[in-house]
């Protein structure tokens, strides 16, 4: 009789453990998905800024055509990208292009002084730092999820219910924090 009760207790505890860790895994995965959509929102905001920025600079520096095309191409590629690695690579190209665009703008005092350009520059700086913050939050959440998915004993439940470790959103070190601007 006693043995039966003990057995029952063990089964209940085990079931409780499975349910709780499964729910915790779901919660963590949702947080990762949510963090990813935050990155997506900010990236989209940057795509929307690019045509404006290019048009404004074009007005003062029309002959930098090659650079404009490069940025437009990188933007198109980023919008088509699928998967974390792919997206990260395309975003790195955009960041590099925009950096050069701002550097070019430094050579045109009229452009630098225009209200429109200053407002766009603030938007760009803000969006880049939001991308950086969103990426940071996403990577933190991925780290938490991956630890849960890979460590014992949650890894058993994770593999049974199809949870996989996620990819980090990596960027090149040179393009790390410290957005494009110096004038603020």
């Amino acid at each position, binding site marked *: 009789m006693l043995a039966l009760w003990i057995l029952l207790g063990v089964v209940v505890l085990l079931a409780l453990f499975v349910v709780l860790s499964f729910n915790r895994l779901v919660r963590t995965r949702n*947080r990762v998905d949510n*963090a990813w959509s*935050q990155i997506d929102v*900010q990236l989209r905001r940057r795509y929307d800024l690019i045509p404006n920025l290019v048009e404004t600079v074009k007005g003062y520096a029309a002959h930098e055509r090659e650079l404009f095309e490069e940025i437009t191409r990188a933007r198109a590629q980023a919008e088509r990208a699928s998967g974390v690695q792919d997206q990260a690579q395309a975003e790195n190209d955009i960041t590099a292009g925009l950096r050069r665009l701002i550097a070019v703008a430094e050579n045109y005092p009229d452009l630098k002084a225009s209200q429109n350009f200053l*407002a766009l520059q*603030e*938007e760009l*700086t*803000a969006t880049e*730092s*939001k991308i950086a*913050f*969103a990426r*940071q*939050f996403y990577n933190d*959440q991925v780290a938490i999820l991956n630890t849960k998915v890979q460590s014992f004993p949650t890894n058993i439940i994770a593999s049974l219910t199809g949870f996989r470790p996620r990819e980090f959103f990596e960027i090149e070190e040179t393009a790390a*924090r410290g957005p494009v601007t110096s004038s*603020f």
Partner: protein
Amino acid sequence: MYEEIARNKRRTVVLVIVNLLLLVAVGYVLAYVFANGNGIVGIVIAVVVAAVMSFASYRYGDRMVLASTRAREVTPQDEPRLHNVVEGIAIAAGVPKPRVYVVPEQAPNAFATGRDPEHSSIAVTRGLLDAMNRVELEGVIAHEMSHVVDRDILLGTIVATLVGAIVLVAEFMLRWFWWGGFGGRRGNDQSGGPAAAIIAIAGIALLLLAPLVGQIIKFAVSRRREYLADAQGAMLTRYPPGLASALKKIAVAPHGMRSANNATAHLWLDQPSRIEGDRMSFMEKLFSTHPPIQDRIRILEEM
């Protein structure tokens, strides 16, 4: 972080209960004196008052605090840089973007209020916006965002509104005594009669209570939490020198603030004062809640 949240919730409950007991005691004594020994009525009234106070400070405490500092909400069009920074740090912390307010004061300072991350506000002074560059502003906002994430804002706001009432009355009494409140000098000492005596006794009682209230505030908002918010803020921006440099500017900037008051002092980034310079008034010392700013800078620089 989760321990901090739990601790803050526990302390909030303790505070509400202490406030209830205090009011019940006062209500009982008053009813005993006035209603000839019928203390029960006093207790009932006190419980109702305490319930209303607690609910109001939970639900509307943030608005009271913001109003008492004359903070005004600003739109992204008014203050694009401030709004962008707040939004960025909110993303880094994984919480909804708080509402953004500006306080018309020249001393650089900031505070956060609200009850949880879904109902939170961050206010900065005009002086802070003028003095700080983007990186420094990020440091300050990240410090405030940590208070939001840890629910320090709930406890801080409830302290400000519950305890604030007592602090206000105590300060009023202090001035009243100071400027000849005992009535003798104005020559109408007879007209006051027992009412004046009761007010005087209540005043003395409140004055004796004031240090106790100061202790309650210190209990609720320990200096540790400021260090903790500094550290957590640095985790959010991944750049401790930003806040360090902001605190350096705050340390040398003029401190005088017209809307400084002992009930809300603990909410601010750095202790506000009505008096220019390093001096603080007697009451302000009694309610001093912030660690020395030089220590905070040193710790951030060692990170």
